């Protein structure tokens, strides 16, 4: 009676393997292959735990690529070696009651996917991994696997694997069990009936751990591949017990499940309003506009520690507050660590094209190399502010408007050398009106990260303004 066969099938298996084709009841696996048994153990455990609806089965590339032919659960077919990474994606997306299985072979998990499995294990993903170790690549035609034994002949180790050429078989369970996070690691065998019975309990335990939200469980299953090994089914099983188990001893390597399960912290859930509020803090308050006449192409340049980046960003922020178009483009990356830093700021009444300032009409030079580098590029009739504390020479050009400001001396007097660029910026604002000094004062409190430095920056603006009035205001 065919119904008898049906009843023997776990409900986590499809009745018919319709994805293989209509009416199919046998698997695609070779005679004597261990995948059928391993699948059945997993499916029975799913039944016993009553988790079929909430299980997601991640199948690898390898012989079990078609896991979804058989498992009547949610199915994700993954790329070669990356099932543990994809499973991580599933785990992190769905709520905590989901059960995620990553079912992988030895080439997939211990070869190409070594990085993915190590890091999934190390993060302690609440995930159950079934690792089928048959010491060979089955699907692609019997090539050497990371777990192939020394001396074992495969299509890519035709004279037998040697330690000198290919290294040693990798003991994944031992490796995984050395990590801090995994809660359960065990190696089982399908080599004999006793081993299968034991495997059945271990498989279920590994899933039970996930139901209890305990974390990462890993079960290595020594499994026959008679075709790959060029043996009959019986010999293959003997080869497991006599050879494979000698190199990969069965047994538990880690069981932290006697400890209480970790308490999970529920995720925050924000309303739309709360999410929008989250971004409110960075808003630039709108202020009365100054008297910007023409597009400002500003180059601010100096060395690290003079506040070049933060002051130039403040300038852009003031322009935004005054409802101008503005761009700020920093020099960035390793170059900045070399000690020179510069930023381009463009302020305009119209949409801005290029944000890179090649020919500035304003240069704020905070140190001598900056003046040397950019003096020639300044447009005729442009403005050059020279930090005369650090730059001894005069500007060579006679077609630009120069203001010499001892910005660093003023800043040191105020108590923070880092405010030097703010002093120079205040002079520029007062002289050009491109942004107003009042706007600078308004924007400083929300722009300075260290609140105890707000006052000193405000004083720097005042000092810059005073210097301008005393020396350059007409």
């Amino acid at each position, binding site marked *: 009676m065919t119904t008898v066969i049906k009843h023997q099938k776990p409900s986590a298996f499809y009745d018919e393997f319709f994805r293989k084709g209509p009416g199919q009841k046998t698997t695609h696996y070779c005679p004597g292959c261990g995948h059928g048994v391993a699948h059945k153990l997993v499916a029975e455990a799913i039944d016993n735990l009553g988790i079929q609806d909430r299980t997601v089965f991640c199948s690898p590339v390898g012989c079990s690529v078609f896991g979804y032919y058989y498992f009547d659960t949610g*199915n994700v077919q993954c790329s070669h070696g990356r099932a543990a*990474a994809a499973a991580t*994606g*599933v785990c992190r997306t769905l709520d905590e009651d989901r059960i995620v299985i990553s079912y992988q072979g030895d080439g997939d998990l211990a070869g190409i996917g070594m990085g993915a499995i190590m890091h999934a294990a190390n993060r302690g993903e609440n995930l159950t991994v079934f690792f089928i170790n048959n010491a060979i690549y089955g699907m692609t035609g019997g090539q050497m696997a990371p777990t192939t034994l020394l001396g074992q002949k495969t299509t890519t180790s035709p004279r037998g694997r040697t330690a000198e050429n290919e290294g040693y078989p990798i003991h994944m369970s031992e490796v995984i069990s050395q990590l801090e996070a995994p809660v359960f690691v065990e190696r089982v065998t399908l080599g004999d009936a006793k081993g299968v019975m034991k495997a059945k309990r271990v498989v279920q335990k590994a899933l039970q751990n996930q139901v209890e939200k305990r974390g990462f469980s890993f079960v290595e299953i020594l499994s026959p591949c008679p075709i790959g090994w060029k043996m009959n089914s019986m010999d293959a099983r003997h080869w497991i017990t006599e050879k494979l188990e000698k190199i990969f001893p069965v047994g538990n390597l880690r069981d932290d499940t006697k400890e209480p399960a970790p308490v999970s912290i529920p*995720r*925050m859930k924000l309303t739309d309003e709360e999410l*929008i509020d989250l971004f409110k803090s960075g808003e630039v308050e709108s202020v009365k506009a100054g008297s910007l006449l023409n597009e400002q192409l500003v180059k601010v340049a100096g060395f690290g520690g003079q506040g070049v980046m933060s002051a130039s960003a403040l300038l852009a922020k003031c322009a935004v507050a005054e409802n101008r178009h503005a761009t700020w483009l920093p020099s960035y990356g390793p170059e900045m660590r070399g000690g020179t830093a510069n930023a381009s700021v463009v302020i305009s009444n119209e949409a801005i094209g290029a*944000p890179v300032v090649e020919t500035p009409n304003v240069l704020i030079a905070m140190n001598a190399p900056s003046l040397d580098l950019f003096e020639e590029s300044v447009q005729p009739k442009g403005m050059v502010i020279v930090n005369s504390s650090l730059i001894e020479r005069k500007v060579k050009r006679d077609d630009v408007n120069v203001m010499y400001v001892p910005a660093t001396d003023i800043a040191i007097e105020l108590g923070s050398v880092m405010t030097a660029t703010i002093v120079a910026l205040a002079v520029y604002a007062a002289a050009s009106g491109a942004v107003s000094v009042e706007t600078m004062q308004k924007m400083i409190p929300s722009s300075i990260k260290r609140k105890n430095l707000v006052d000193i920056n405000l004083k720097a603006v005042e000092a810059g303004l005073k210097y301008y009035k005393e020396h350059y205001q007409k």
Partner: protein
Amino acid sequence: MTKHLMKGNDAVIRGALLGGATEFFGYPITPASEIAHAAAFYFPLAGHTFLQAECEVNAINMLYGASAAGSRVMTASAGPGVALMAEGLSYLAGAELPNVVIDVQRAGPGLGNIWPEQSDYNMVVKGGGNGNYKNIVLAPNSVQEMCDFTYKAFDLADKYRMTVFIMADAYIGQMMEPVELPKQVIHGKRKDWAIYADKESRKNLVTSIFMSVEEMAAHNQKLCDKYERLKNEIVDFEEVDTEDADILLIAYGISARISLSAVKELRAKGIKAGLLRPKTLFPFPSKRIAELSEKMKKVFVVELSEGQMLEDVKLAIYGKAPIELCNWMGGMVPSSKDLINKMGYGD
């Protein structure tokens, strides 16, 4: 009208969260790292997932798993990282999984440097991974568009079940500009094909394998039909001063900003220049470029690569106007003056 002043890379994460993103998996790389920084800060605050992956290969596969589970998921990288993601992107396309990837382009090949180039065009716009597939590719040229394009990318990805790329460059990512944030939060809806670990979705399968050649052929055809449909449905571009123009500049991203300056300056000299800026690189605005080219004395393609977009422009114009490439490589970014000189209109 309240505005923020922020980097393009920071604006991406504002747009993403307001656009309904719930998962971010990524690996740091200059000049895209600020995107990961902002995601690491804001995603958990919003009750969502940020996870730094061990490499780009596994990051894109985390996207694959998360998208299979119905998530609005994203990552961000630059050329070398996007190259590593190529296989995963092909799988995502084959399995028709929606997701969003930001590419802040830098100079290559190899490690190259961290300055702007636009030489990921072929890899991102033409494919990059194996098989017949396409990504939707949006090309922002401002910090505002970094926010806006990311904001709408998740809806596009879900609608077409595709990868949507935001194709930026080092300058668009690193510069600060004013941004107005979207005022409404968009949420992803439940997808009837995704796997939610519940009874209703138990039957669902996410895969890119089709063992029978007939099924594989039909699947390919279905994808190609979808890509064809996009050409009518989402192609987007901006035109500046094209109405009376007799020379046309075509550029995207940072090159379009420089071209915009060049057009203004050329106009001031009495030269009738216009600009067409593709906002979508796939689908490419071929039809409009073909129309415009008919009245042009010359078309200039401005890009920071050896001439990758140039090929799409050539295909669009098909000999109807002379084309000249004005390009820079290696992280060199021209001024508008450099560009005008190269075009042959210098003083």
